[in-house]
C-alpha cells in the first residue's frame, strides 16, 4: 500500500454538549485508510467508533464540536459547508448503516431509491438510464433477477437482500471511501458471511478504501487488513490484523480478545448425565401459529419436541425468525400453543388455569434479552428483584433481595437505584437475580447476553453458569451465538424455520453435525482468528 491515504483522521476530537456539561466522545484519534485497504475500527459501546466515522461525512448533530482534521482524498471535510459536503457524500464517501430496514424508505421501490442515489450526483441522467444503471448495480451486489427487483418495495425483500440494496446505493457513484458502520450486526450469521464476501469482492474490484466499524472480533478477523482498537474515545492500539490477534500489545486489546467466546471442541462444561433423570421440561409436538394478514396462518413453531432434564442446560440455536424465542415463551405459558403439549416438572402446563398455572409458573424464571426493557423503569432495582416475592407472598424480602444481589455479584446498595442508573451488564445481573428469586427449577434465558458488549457478556455468562452449577436449575438457553451456546450448554438443539433440525450432545451437534444447515451455521460464524477464519472461508465456499 504505497498510495497516498484516501481517508485520514488527524487528531480528531469530538465533544457533545448536553445541558451545561460537555462530554468528550472522541479524543485525539488519528488513523488513515489507503485505497484498496480495509481498516476495521473495533470497540465496545461508547468507545466513539461510530462518532469517528460519522465525522467523515459531516453527519454529526449540531450539538457536537469537532477539532482536528478529517481528510477525504486531500480535502478537509471539517471545513466544508452544507452544499460542498453534500457533493462529497455519496460521491466520494458513502456509508452503509446497521439497520437496512430503516436505511431504506418504505414508501418507494428499490429501483427508485437506487436511481435517486445516482441522479443526486450525476446530472442529465435520464430516468431510463438511471434505472438501467440501478439494475446493473443490483446485479453487481449479487442480487439475482435484478430487473424484476427494481419494482419491489423494501418490505418485500429479506434482510440480507435489503442490506445488498443499501450497499448498491452506497457504491452507486463509485465512492473512493466506503464506511460500513456495523453493517452486518443486524443480520444472521449466514447472511453476514455473504455480505462480508460481497464487501471483500467490491473492494477488490473498485479499489475502494473500506472503513469497517464493528464490535465483532470475528468480523474483524474475517475482513480487515488493519485494525484500530478504540476505548473511551481514544485509539489504544493499531496493528495489522495478524499482529493484533497473534500479539496484542495494549492491555485493553488483550482483555477484549480474551473475553470473546470461542467455539472449540471439548471446551466449556461437560456434564455426565445419570441414566434415569427426572425431566424438568418436556415439549411434545408443539405447534404455535400466529394469525397473519388476511387470516393467513403463520406457523412460527412447527412440531417441536424437546426435553430438558433436571440440572441440564439445553442450548437452543437458530437464526432470526426460526421460532426459538416463541418456543421459550410457550414453554412457560406466555403463549398458548396451537397444538401439542408443554409439561413442566411432570405437570401439564397447557391445561393449567388460574391458580394452578401460577403455582407452576413460580417454579420457573425467565431472563430476557434487553435488560433495559425487562426492568420497569419506574421501579427501583430492589423492587424489581422483590416483585416475584411480592406476587407470591414471600416474607423477609429485604434479606432475600440483598442475598440475591450478592449472588449475582452486585453491590446490595444498588437496590435503591433505578434501572437507568445501572450499566447494561449490571442491569442484566438484576434480571438474573429476579429470575432466581423463587429458587426456580427451570430458567428460560432468551438471548440474555446479546445486548451486551463482549467483555460484559463474558462476566455475565460466568455469573450465570456459576449460579447454575450451584443451584442446579435446568435451563433453556436461547441464543443465535454459537460460541455462547458452546460455552454454556450440555446439549444443543438447532432450529430452522420453526423446526428442530438437529439435537444432541454439544460437541456432536457443533462439530460432527449430521445436518447441512447446522454445518453452514457453524462455518458461517466468524471466529476471532484471521488465519483460521481464512481457512473456514475457503471451507464454506467449498460447502
Amino acid at each position, binding site marked *: 500500500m504505497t498510495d497516498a491515504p484516501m481517508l485520514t483522521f488527524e487528531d480528531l476530537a469530538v465533544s457533545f454538549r448536553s445541558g451545561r456539561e460537555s462530554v468528550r466522545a472522541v479524543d485525539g484519534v488519528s488513523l488513515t485508510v489507503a485505497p484498496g485497504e480495509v481498516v476495521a475500527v473495533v470497540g465496545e459501546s461508547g468507545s466513539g467508533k461510530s462518532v469517528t466515522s460519522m465525522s467523515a461525512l459531516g453527519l454529526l448533530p449540531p450539538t457536537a464540536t469537532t477539532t482536528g482534521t478529517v481528510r477525504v482524498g486531500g480535502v478537509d471535510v471539517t471545513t466544508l459547508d452544507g452544499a460542498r459536503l453534500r457533493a462529497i457524500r455519496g460521491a466520494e464517501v458513502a456509508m452503509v448503516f446497521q439497520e437496512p430496514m430503516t436505511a431504506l424508505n418504505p414508501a418507494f421501490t428499490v429501483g427508485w431509491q437506487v436511481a435517486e442515489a445516482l441522479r443526486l450526483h450525476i446530472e442529465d441522467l435520464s430516468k431510463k438510464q438511471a434505472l438501467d444503471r440501478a439494475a446493473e448495480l443490483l446485479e453487481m451486489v449479487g442480487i439475482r433477477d435484478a430487473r424484476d427487483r427494481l419494482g419491489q418495495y423494501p418490505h418485500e425483500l429479506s434482510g440480507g437482500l435489503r442490506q445488498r440494496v443499501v450497499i448498491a446505493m452506497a457504491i452507486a457513484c463509485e465512492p473512493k471511501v466506503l464506511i460500513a458502520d456495523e453493517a452486518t450486526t443486524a443480520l444472521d450469521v449466514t447472511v453476514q458471511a455473504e455480505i462480508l464476501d460481497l464487501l471483500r469482492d467490491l473492494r477488490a474490484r473498485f479499489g475502494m478504501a473500506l472503513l469497517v466499524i464493528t464490535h465483532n472480533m470475528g468480523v474483524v478477523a474475517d475482513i480487515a487488513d488493519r485494525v484500530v482498537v478504540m476505548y473511551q474515545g481514544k485509539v489504544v492500539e493499531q496493528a495489522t490484523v495478524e499482529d493484533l490477534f497473534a500479539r496484542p500489545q495494549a492491555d485493553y486489546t488483550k*482483555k477484549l480478545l480474551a*473475553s470473546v467466546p470461542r467455539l472449540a471442541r471439548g471446551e466449556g462444561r461437560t456434564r455426565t448425565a445419570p441414566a434415569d433423570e427426572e425431566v424438568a421440561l418436556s415439549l411434545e409436538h408443539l405447534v404455535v401459529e400466529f394469525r397473519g394478514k388476511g387470516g393467513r396462518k403463520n406457523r412460527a413453531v412447527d412440531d417441536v419436541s424437546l426435553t430438558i432434564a433436571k440440572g441440564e442446560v439445553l442450548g437452543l440455536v437458530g437464526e432470526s425468525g426460526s421460532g426459538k424465542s416463541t418456543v421459550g415463551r410457550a414453554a412457560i405459558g406466555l403463549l398458548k400453543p396451537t397444538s401439542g403439549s408443554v409439561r413442566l416438572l411432570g405437570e401439564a402446563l397447557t391445561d393449567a388455569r388460574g391458580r394452578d398455572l401460577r403455582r407452576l409458573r413460580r417454579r420457573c424464571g425467565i431472563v*430476557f434479552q434487553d435488560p433495559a*426493557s425487562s426492568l420497569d423503569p419506574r421501579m427501583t432495582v430492589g423492587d424489581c428483584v422483590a416483585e416475584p416475592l411480592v406476587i407470591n407472598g414471600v416474607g423477609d424480602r429485604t434479606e432475600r433481595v440483598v442475598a440475591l444481589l450478592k449472588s449475582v455479584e452486585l453491590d446490595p446498595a444498588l437496590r435503591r437505584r433505578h434501572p437507568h442508573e*445501572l*450499566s447494561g451488564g*449490571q442491569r442484566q445481573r438484576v434480571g438474573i437475580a429476579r429470575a432466581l428469586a*423463587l429458587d426456580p427449577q427451570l430458567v428460560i434465558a432468551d438471548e440474555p447476553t446479546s445486548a451486551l458488549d463482549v467483555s460484559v457478556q463474558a462476566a455475565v455468562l*460466568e455469573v450465570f453458569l456459576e449460579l447454575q452449577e*450451584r443451584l442446579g436449575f435446568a435451563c433453556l438457553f436461547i441464543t443465535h451465538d454459537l460460541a455462547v451456546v458452546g460455552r454454556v450448554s450440555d446439549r444443543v438443539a438447532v432450529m430452522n424455520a420453526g423446526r428442530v433440525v438437529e439435537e444432541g450432545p454439544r460437541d456432536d451437534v457443533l462439530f460432527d453435525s449430521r445436518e447441512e444447515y447446522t454445518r453452514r451455521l457453524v462455518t458461517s460464524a466468524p471466529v476471532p482468528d484471521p488465519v483460521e477464519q481464512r481457512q473456514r472461508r475457503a471451507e464454506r465456499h467449498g460447502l
Partner: protein
Amino acid sequence: MSPPRFEGRGPCTAQPMSLSSPVVAEPAPVRVAGSYRRMASLFFANRLAVSGLVILGVLLLFCFLGPLVHHTDQTHTNLAGANLSPGQGGHPLGTDDVGHDELGRLMIGGQTSLEIGIAAGLLATLIGTIWGAVSGYAGGWLDAIMMRVVDAGIAIPALFLLLVTATIVRPTVPVQILIIGCVSWLVPARLVRAEALSLRSRDYVQAMKAMGGGHRRAVFRHIIPNAIGTVVVNATFQVADAILLIAYVSFLGLGVAPPKTDWGGMLSKGIAYTYDGYWWMIFPAGIAIVLVVCAFNAIGDGLRDSFEVRLQGR
C-alpha cells in the same frame, strides 16, 4: 464524565469452566440525578410554565384566602347599593345588579369554578386512566367494546349532555363535578389506552406474568405508573377544559343557584348590562377565566416538555 467503574465482581468462587476472565471495565452510565429531580429542574427552567404556576398560585390565594381579608356579604341582596361603579361606597370593583360586592363575588365565584374544575378534571383523569389502561391491557373483544363506548361518548357533545342533565337535576357543586367528570374522561381514556397497548408487550410486564403475577398488578403497578407522564400532562388540560365547560354552562344560566355563583355565572349576569357600560361586571370574571385556563395550559405544556426530553429546546 465519571471515571469508569468496574463491574462489581465479588470474591467469585469455583471457576470450573474455561471462561476467560472478564476484566474489562464497562463504562457506567453517566450518573444522572433522580428522574423526578431532573424533571423538576427542566420544568422550572421553562419560563412559561413557571409563570403559569405563579398565576395559578396567586388565583388560588385570592379566591380561598382573599375573603379572610376582604369581608363582604355575599348572601343578602342590597338593592340600594346595586350597580355601583368601582370605588363607590367602599367597593373596589363596584357592585352587581343586586348589590353584591364584585371583588368579594369574584373570590367566592372563583372558589366554585376552581373547585369544580379541579375536582372534575381529576375525576375525569381517574376514570379515563383506569378505563384506558384496562382496555389497552386487555385487548381483544373487551378492548373493542370499551373503546366503542368511548367512541359513542365522544360523538355526543358534552355541552348538550350537561344542559340536559342540568334541567333534570338541581345543579349543586358535587353534582356538577360528577357530571363534568363523567362526560370528559373520554379523551384521557383514549390516550392512556394507546400507551397501554405498547406497554403491555414490554418485557417487564411479560416477566411479571411469567412470575405468576395477575392482571391487576400488571395494570396498576406497571402500566399506569409508566403512562403517568401522559396522565399528568393531560390532567392539567382536563382541569382547564373543565373550568371552561363549567363557565359555558353557567353562562347559559344553568350553573349553581344564587346566592352562590361562579365566574361563568357572573359573566352571564354582566352581559345583560353591556349597553349600560357596566364593564366591571364583565371584565374581572372574564379575565379570571382566561388567566386560569392559560395558567393550566402553560403548566401542562411545561410538564410535557419535562417528561419528553426530546421536545426540549423547541
